[in-house]
């Protein structure tokens, strides 16, 4: 290791009130054209949360329609458009960018002790691509929307008369490149911009998770891009590669699609696991249990993710040989996932747990992810999958993983870093109430759907047998409860921006580097090179009554 010249100390130390990234430059162009990773992270967060709101409205409309068999509020065709929009918006505009691009952009360089990501311009370009993708989705809505399901399965997606298929596919193509460039940026940043002392095994686990995620983003997303490009060409020029009537192979489309989209599921869940590792360790003030196991399990999941895609295709006509192989490999994903769960629980054991909002979300994650993960085993089993495939059981399973795990972790992480991002504390009591409401509402909504699915209700159906109605009614009521929880969250978070208490530099007692800089962080993150230590050594952190935050107290000599 060559040593780098030490950064000279900045001549003046600015307080967060006089200089931070939020007020460093003023005006809307200074935000939209910013090269600062923190601002780009904030822009992503705003965009993702707005998209989450839009996707949530579609979800509410779909759930409301399903209150009664037959027509309740919308006709069948509109229903098809709405559930498709819900899926596409939530997957491509919300969950995939939510943790890496939104929170990751803000947190990664600071946690690493770097001044920025490796390619700030590319980072801004990614964000502009994200905006373009979102605009394409809106254009698609104007041009007649799309009813293909978020999976764009051929030959339906190449033959449907819905007018907005091409714009939305172009949008997803663009969003894919946004995701690729974010991943590329993160890999290079983690490899090349670590300051002296930040070795691989001193990196916080969130960074390991982002690193594993970035590997998937870079390696899997191009395949989705070319597949969608082929669908567009197929729609425009009828080339027939995926069209069985022209000698093409629709199962090949599914292979291509899931070669990306199964790893994409891990693009959603792996960074969520990283956040949970941070939340559990910091809020139970205890050294993380099994650091290396958690770190390597992230990478293991990333690698496994590429060889299990066929478990989405058990009933598609895939050969029995491949069914068997994919089923067997899929089970093995349970191992690294369980490693993480056990390590988190061991970290909690005898920890000094602060039962605050981020911790509640982390605990909710563990419960929901365990249910979501274990029901995944039912679906990876060949013979049960034949019964459960394309039923509400699958819907419930992936909502437990994508929403109950990935999004819950995102919201938990948002609360954890909210003081750092905004410099304000949110209302802790309301936060815990909202978390409880979301947790209860979520389980009412989706646990019911496990029963609905195992009784045989197919997914995506507009109409159903009367005996299913009671489940649908319960599920819809649950979704309203959940929505009210999120609305409450939105309200107190906005309120905190206006009248929240000023946040100290380290409100939770975290030992990672982002808690060493002020809240909100200064424009260049660190005025002097941060001293890198063990990210999970909380022994020197003590609660300081005056500042209402944690300060580092070294045993021999005190240092503020």
């Amino acid at each position, binding site marked *: 290791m060559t040593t780098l010249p030490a950064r000279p100390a900045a001549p003046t130390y600015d307080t967060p009130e006089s200089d931070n990234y939020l007020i460093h430059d003023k005006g809307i162009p200074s935000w939209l054209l910013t090269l600062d990773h923190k601002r780009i992270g904030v822009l992503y967060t705003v965009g993702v949360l707005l998209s989450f709101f839009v996707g949530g409205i579609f979800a509410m409309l779909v759930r409301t329609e399903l209150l009664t068999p037959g027509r309740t509020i919308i006709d069948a065709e509109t229903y098809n458009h709405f559930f498709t929009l819900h899926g596409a918006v939530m997957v491509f505009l919300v969950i995939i960018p939510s943790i890496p691009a939104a929170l990751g952009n803000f947190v990664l360089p600071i946690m690493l002790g770097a001044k920025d990501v490796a390619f700030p311009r590319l980072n801004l370009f990614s964000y502009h691509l994200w905006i373009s993708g979102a605009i394409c989705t809106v254009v698609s809505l104007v041009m007649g929307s799309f009813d293909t399901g978020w999976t764009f399965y051929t030959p339906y997606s190449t033959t449907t008369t819905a007018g907005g298929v091409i714009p939305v596919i172009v949008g997803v193509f663009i969003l894919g490149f946004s995701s690729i460039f974010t991943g590329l940026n993160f890999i290079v940043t983690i490899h090349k911009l670590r300051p002296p002392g930040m070795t691989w095994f001193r990196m916080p686990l969130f960074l390991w998770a982002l690193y594993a995620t970035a590997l998937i983003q870079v*390696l899997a997303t191009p395949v989705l891009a070319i597949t969608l490009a082929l669908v567009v060409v197929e729609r425009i020029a009828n080339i027939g590669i995926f069209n069985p009537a022209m000698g093409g192979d629709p199962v090949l489309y599914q292979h291509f699609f899931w070669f990306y989209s199964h790893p994409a599921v891990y693009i959603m869940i792996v960074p969520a696991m990283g956040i949970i590792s941070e939340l559990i360790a910091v809020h139970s003030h205890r050294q993380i249990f099994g650091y290396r196991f958690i770190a390597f399990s992230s990478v293991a999941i990333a690698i496994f993710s590429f060889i299990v895609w066929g478990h989405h295709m058990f009933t598609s006509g895939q050969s029995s040989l491949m069914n068997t192989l994919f089923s067997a490999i899929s089970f093995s994903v349970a191992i690294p996932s369980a490693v993480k769960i056990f390590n988190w629980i061991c970290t909690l054991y005898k920890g000094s747990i602060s039962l605050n909002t981020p911790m509640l979300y982390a605990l909710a994650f563990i419960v929901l992810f365990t249910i979501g993960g274990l029901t995944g085993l039912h679906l990876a089993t060949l013979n049960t999958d034949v019964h459960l495939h394309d039923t509400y059981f699958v819907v419930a399973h992936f909502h437990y993983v994508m929403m109950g795990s990935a999004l819950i972790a995102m919201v938990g992480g948002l609360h954890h870093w909210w003081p750092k991002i905004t410099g304000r504390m949110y209302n802790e009591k309301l936060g815990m109430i909202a978390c409880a409401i979301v947790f209860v509402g979520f389980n009412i909504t989706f646990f019911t759907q496990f029963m609905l699915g195992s009784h045989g209700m197919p997914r995506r159906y507009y109409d159903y047998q009367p005996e299913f109605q009671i489940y649908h009614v319960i599920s819809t009521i649950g979704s309203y409860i959940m929505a009210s929880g999120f609305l409450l969250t939105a309200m107190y978070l906005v309120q905190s921006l206006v009248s929240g208490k000023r946040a100290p530099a380290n409100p939770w007692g975290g030992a990672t580097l982002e808690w060493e800089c002020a809240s909100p962080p200064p424009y260049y993150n660190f005025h002097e090179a941060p001293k890198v230590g063990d990210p999970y050594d909380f022994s020197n952190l003590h609660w300081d009554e005056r500042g209402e935050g944690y300060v580092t107290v070294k045993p021999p000599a005190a240092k503020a």
Partner: protein
Amino acid sequence: MSAHAPAGDHHAADGHDDHGHGGGHGHHNAEYPFLAHHFETPAQQFDSAKLGMWLFLVTEVLFFGALFVGYAVLRNRYPDVFTYASAYLDTTLGGINTAVLILSSLTMAMGVYFAQTGRKTALVVCLWLTMAGAAGFMVIKYFEYTHKFHVHLVWGEGFYKPVTDDGGLQSAELSSKAPVPLAPAQTTMSAGTVTAQQLAMPAFVQMPAGEQTAIAPPAAGPAGMAPAVIDAKAAEHAADPATHGDEALHLEDAAMPPNTHLFFAIYYAMTGLHGIHVLVGMGVIGWLIVRAGRGEFGPKYYTPVDLVGLYWHIVDLVWIFLFPLFYLID
């Protein structure tokens, strides 16, 4: 579009540093004006850019890789189609294009060498030569494509349409009314003919059996024209501008296997995507020529030349596989 993005990042600091980060970094920037504020040394910046470019190249590999997988699946499924249809491609033009791309790769590599050694004029000359190679490749590709369009060696239904007087495709409206003969063995429907409209709107209920397809094979023409004969005829046509593009020879050939249109679908998909990459390459090489002309590159700083070089070599590399896989099947 995206290729020069990592390369372009070396300006990243331009806007950033205007804010005057206090002290410290001034001496770096004076010695290395290209050094972005968040890097400590030129080596760190160069390594980062190079790693970023390699990651981008991997996305390119997978981008094309999916199409290669599609190619493999189709070829495995319809081996006779690929053997047959390859004869319609002009090996000479394909071979010349391969050589042109290899030579342009060589000039690009030499360009990197001259940039590293600070020889500005030689660098600009090399970049122009590379640009010429790229342009030559596209011109040859243009002639290949236009010839095939004339004789309806295209994707989809257009492949099965006879050439009209003006050499263009029949309009969709006309063809939808014209019945297209369909051999009885090829369908389970009782009628021996099916309209082109039905063909154009493929329906699930016409799920083909085995090798069969709802797309009609051509009506039997002069029996058993071998690929070699077709090749000879095509060459003859190509040599004679007067008859150039007057006939869709494949439609006269009873030996043409079903689903031959798929060969051309994947051919245009892959070579088309490759062609787009060549055009993007010409764009970024042009950008390099401008910057090299201003004398921006030298032994201290040549990263953009190096990265564009890597991109250009990957374009060459893809063609190295496309050439034997499409042109050289026997």
